[in-house]
């Protein structure tokens, strides 16, 4: 058997391994990339989602402290389990504000009654206009905004218990 044939499989293996190594080193990115990390929050002023609880506007994020901006809805199923995690974060002293998208005040109120309320302020975004402006692709989604109103991190999907260490780290970095 010629040397070429005997060593061919090895050569092929090398090429395949190289490709796989490359892939492991550079993971695929999400379909909708976060273009807003490092950008300031868009200017907005939302009405209160659940009066008399405070409404939400851009100026609320220039407090000098990093805050979490959480996009949720009463009809969003994964949001139910996320509330518990958010409350855990709130107990650690994290400031969380919410945006309720495409929702009605009575439904949001019922959701908070049933599952708990980790939010300091909740703004209403009935047409999801702000959600799109934030480049958010779904619900729930959270943003870490630093003390000067710059978006520092976008977390897609519900924040689970296993994500908490990363969230806390990002909050620290945003100081």
């Amino acid at each position: 058997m010629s040397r070429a044939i005997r060593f061919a499989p090895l050569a092929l293996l090398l090429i395949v391994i190289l490709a796989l190594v490359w892939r492991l080193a550079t993971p695929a990115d999400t379909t909708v990339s976060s273009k807003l990390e490092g950008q300031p929050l868009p200017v907005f002023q939302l009405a209160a989602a659940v009066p008399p609880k405070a409404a939400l506007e851009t100026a609320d994020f220039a407090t000098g402290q990093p805050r979490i901006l959480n996009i949720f809805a009463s009809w969003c199923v994964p949001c139910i389990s996320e509330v518990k995690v958010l409350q855990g974060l709130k107990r650690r002293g994290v400031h969380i504000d919410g945006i309720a998208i495409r929702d009605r005040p009575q439904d949001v109120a019922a959701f908070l009654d049933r599952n708990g309320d980790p939010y300091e302020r909740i703004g209403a975004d009935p047409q999801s206009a702000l959600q799109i402006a934030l480049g958010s692709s779904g619900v729930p989604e959270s943003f870490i905004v630093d003390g000067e109103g710059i978006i520092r991190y976008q977390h897609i999907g519900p924040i689970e218990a296993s994500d908490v260490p990363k969230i806390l780290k990002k909050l620290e970095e945003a100081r």
Partner: protein
Amino acid sequence: MIAETGLAALWLAAGLAALQFLLMVIALRTTLDVGRTIRAVAAVQGALALTAFVMLLLVFARSDMSVALVFENSHTAKPFIYKIAGAWGNHEGSMLLWVTVLSGAGACLGLLSRQTHERTLVAALGAQAALALGFYAFLLIASNPFARLLPAPPNGKGLNPLLQDPGLAFHPPTLYFGYVGLSVAFSLAVGALLTGEVDAKLARAMRPWVLGAWTLLTLGITAGSYWAYYELGWGGYWFWDPVENASLMPWLAATALLHSINVLAARGALKAWTMMLAVVAFSMSMVGTFLVRSGILTSVHAFAIDPQRGTFLLALLAIYVGAAFILFAVRGATLKEGAPFELVSRETGLVVNNLLLSVILGIVFLGTLYPLFVEAVSGEKLSVGAPYFNAVAGPLALVLAILVGIGPLLSWRRERRPVFKQLTVPALLGVTVFVISFIVAPAMGVLPRVGLPVAMFLAGASILPLVGRNPLRAPIATWGMVVAHLGIAVSLVGMAMNAAFTSERLAVVRPNETLTVGPWTVLLKEVTPTAGQNFTAIEAELRATRGDGIKVLKPQTRYFTDPPMETNEAAIDTFWNGQLYTVIGKPDPSGGWQLRLWWKPFVTLIWAGGVLIALGGAIAMTGRVRRQRRRKPEWRKERYA
């Protein structure tokens, strides 16, 4: 306590694997006889790994939430059988299962092999231990299944409804036994390359292992296909998804290996092919495992890859497969060719069979990894799916199917008789079906148009080896071959019928309205809310008839909360000539419901064929093993010079 016992057993097993490997090195370099010792070590290693796995099953059975894995993957409310299945329904647990089967196979190899060259067997046991060592290391360093979670939470996270399904719960173990069974072939090949004893005896030793692994792989793939068919809700049975390809590729290699072994066993020929295929088959098992667990080939919108796991597995893959390929490259020149054969002979037929299967394997492999290569080189994102695989591999598979009908009729070495005369009947059958298909179904796709006659030809040709002789006197292995080849034909018929004659209807239907599909008239009686153990659902009651009696079907859409998800439960009714497949969709503002119906004639033949193929393998295995056991065990007396 139980978890710690399991962990301790795992460490001990790893230690013994190291010892087993050392014994092989000693045996190859000195004249010491380690036969008894290495077998004992292999046996104890297997027992220890099994102990560790049993400990894992126990903590799951008891819902011990202080074990992190149980917390992540189980819940006290789970039905008992799924608590057990939860043990292997996750990364760490399935890796433990993998290593248990690996070391168990090694133990059986040591204890049950009778007709193998002693030196080769010792080398094979060492190779098997080397394989196990890498996985033990992976488990103990990066994927400890017994890690504790303290303080123990009251209940677990794992009530994923998708995993609470009998097919899915038991499909992974079947596949694993298949994948890991191929490791024995790999080890025997490596052992034989090391000792130079590549001959018919080796082939006979490898055969039952390959047959067993191949049979289980066939069953696993068939079961997986049926699961996807009824669970995913739109009647497809194969998607060329990387996860599916990960199980198909070892199967293709194993099929080629199986046939190559037969040539080596009967004629002493095709040594190089057989050794290479044995290495490739298990390599494909490893590639498959890597692809699935590292997450690198999940979809365009994946965002949770585990690079650490992937890197470890990739390293193991590179080491094992690389070492085997180097060994092959270096020792390949010493493989002396066996008895010569003519152009028209069974050997040639099997060489062509090997070639075609290897090419199809290459095509599937290329298609699966191509998106990766392209993105690495040009950054372009693309996906390769059914259009590629069907167009490229399909025709080759059909050519192969025709050869499957002809090959078994050829004699070894030199075919003198007019074989093609025997094939006139099956050939006529095929041609007739081909012609009729134009009359019955003028608008059929090319693949089913050609596939159906080929399948009918194969069905007729596959039984020919038993025709003209006393079937009861034929060797059991021949029966196995006939049944398996017939199974291929049956499966092909099912696929062709499904592609050519499926009827589908999709419409909005209000209660008390009907929708027709194929010969069926389906009435939507009503849609009511309902609930199950851990879900709420809306259920449609459908009344279907095609003239003789009414069948009731109840498709559902289910909503789960823990974790939150929505699934579609199709309602399927099976008849002698097909399946009625019904799915309910979303409601309409006008009070109607989206309803999707399929009538799939003879679709069940696809999986019936798969079961037949596996049955053929099982029959052949019984035949071979029985014949082998009648000879006296040689290892007790053989000493090497």
